[in-house]
């Protein structure tokens, strides 16, 4: 019963949603909409689970005094502070929460993102090697895209003595071609593969073949 009941619920709920997609009857559409509204509540609970998991992992790290445990402490203090401040004094403009968001969280997040430029430069220097045919192809394509997507690249191209004058739009054309043809073809392949994988996984779950979602993290 412990397994049969969740499997039955999964099958019936999943099958009903598929039915609602193909049968545009009023009663079916209304009930399917109601079920989707319930889904919002379920998804909202994932936030609670996420916070619970975060607290559990970091509290354990602090308790065991693992390396860098003080970062975990800072994280938990910030999490609790923002929650308490937001819950009791509001999150609108002019509140303490808003001030912290604007002056601490936003600049820190933006700084994290901007570090990417430094790491990309370092990684490109150390790892982007023309070791074989495939790597060389990737390297050449990446270089063309990097030059073609910036205004300075086009300015330099137009000033090249022979190439720029004879083929003024060649760099832009080549950049667009790489994006539209080889890139789009690769992306399509990945997307079709992922979609087929998702469909097969959904079917396996509906038919009760895939049962991993019934188990705990340990697989019991």
């Amino acid at each position, binding site marked *: 019963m412990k397994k049969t009941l969740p499997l039955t619920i999964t099958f019936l709920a999943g099958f009903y949603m598929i039915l609602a997609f193909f049968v545009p009857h009023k009663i079916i559409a209304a009930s399917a909409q109601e079920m989707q509204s319930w889904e919002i509540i379920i998804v909202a609970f994932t936030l609670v689970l996420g916070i619970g998991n975060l607290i559990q992992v970091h509290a354990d790290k602090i308790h065991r005094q693992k390396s860098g445990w003080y970062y975990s402490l800072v994280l938990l203090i910030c999490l609790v502070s923002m929650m308490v401040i937001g819950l009791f004094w509001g999150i609108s403009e002019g509140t303490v929460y808003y001030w912290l968001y604007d002056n601490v969280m936003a600049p820190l997040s933006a700084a994290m993102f901007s570090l990417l430029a430094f790491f990309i430069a*370092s990684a490109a220097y150390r790892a982007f*090697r023309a070791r074989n045919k495939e790597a060389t192809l990737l390297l050449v394509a990446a270089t063309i895209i990097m030059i073609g997507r910036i205004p300075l690249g086009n300015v330099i191209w137009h000033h090249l003595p022979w190439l720029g004058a004879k083929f003024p739009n060649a760099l832009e054309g080549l950049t667009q071609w790489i994006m539209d043809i080889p890139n789009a073809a690769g992306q399509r392949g990945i997307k079709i593969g992922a979609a087929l994988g998702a469909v097969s996984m959904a079917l396996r779950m509906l038919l009760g073949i895939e049962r991993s979602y019934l188990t705990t993290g340990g697989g019991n």
Partner: protein
Amino acid sequence: MTKLTQLDRRWIFLAMGLVVAAALLVDLKMPVTISQDVRRAYDLIDSLPAGTPVLFSWDYDPGSMPELHPLADAMLRHAMRKDLKVVMMGHWVTGIPLIERQIGEVIRKDFPGKAYGTDYVNLGYKSGQYVVVVSMAQNIYDAFPQDYYHNRTDTLPLMRKVRSLKDVAAIVSFSAGDPGLLMWIQFAWQRFRIPVTGGCTAVSAPEFSAYLQSNQLQGLMGGMRGAAEYEMLIGRPAMATTGMSAQSLGHFLIIAFIIIGNIAYFAIRKREEK
């Protein structure tokens, strides 16, 4: 050559920092050419008659703000100039205050005549991702019973016109990942045929090529370059256009590092073969 391959990465960081800082200080004026994808996004908004409701979704957080904030700024400004009615929302909870920031920077500052509730509405955040999109397509009051300021949604004049997602002429998503632009294409366009456009970070732009070709996506602004192009189209060069010089020199520096790294690599390989 061996020394070159073992170069301390702090030198690379220093070079990048200096180049970007210098470019920002000097601000080299460079011509920005308009790409087809950005032109399509602009044309979609530009073709809408005054008073048409559109939905803008802020699907990013402060992490991607440097790239996506100029994008949202330019497009919101365009919509306000065209007198479109903008319904705002977001799928990233940490990104919602950014809507407020943009309202302050664009609407309250440069379009003071626009009234909340009539010309624009901020619905805020609702967890649920694609379920929220589907629910909004059925009934927007169910998905958002209240707006960001706790007003009842069905009491706002603009929201009386926009009862479901099907009442908006276009959806614009400023997207840093998932949930974002892709989710809007898959659920708003694919199921309800509402035109979707928007912008994304430069790194995720290649992912959307296939959707642009199939017209499932009506134009795209990729990263800061896309924003700079849009700024050119609305005739107001701003943050992104200034950022182009830093981005240009940054790219060239990366290419220079790749070339130096490869020269060192081939020199060492040749020496080892001998």
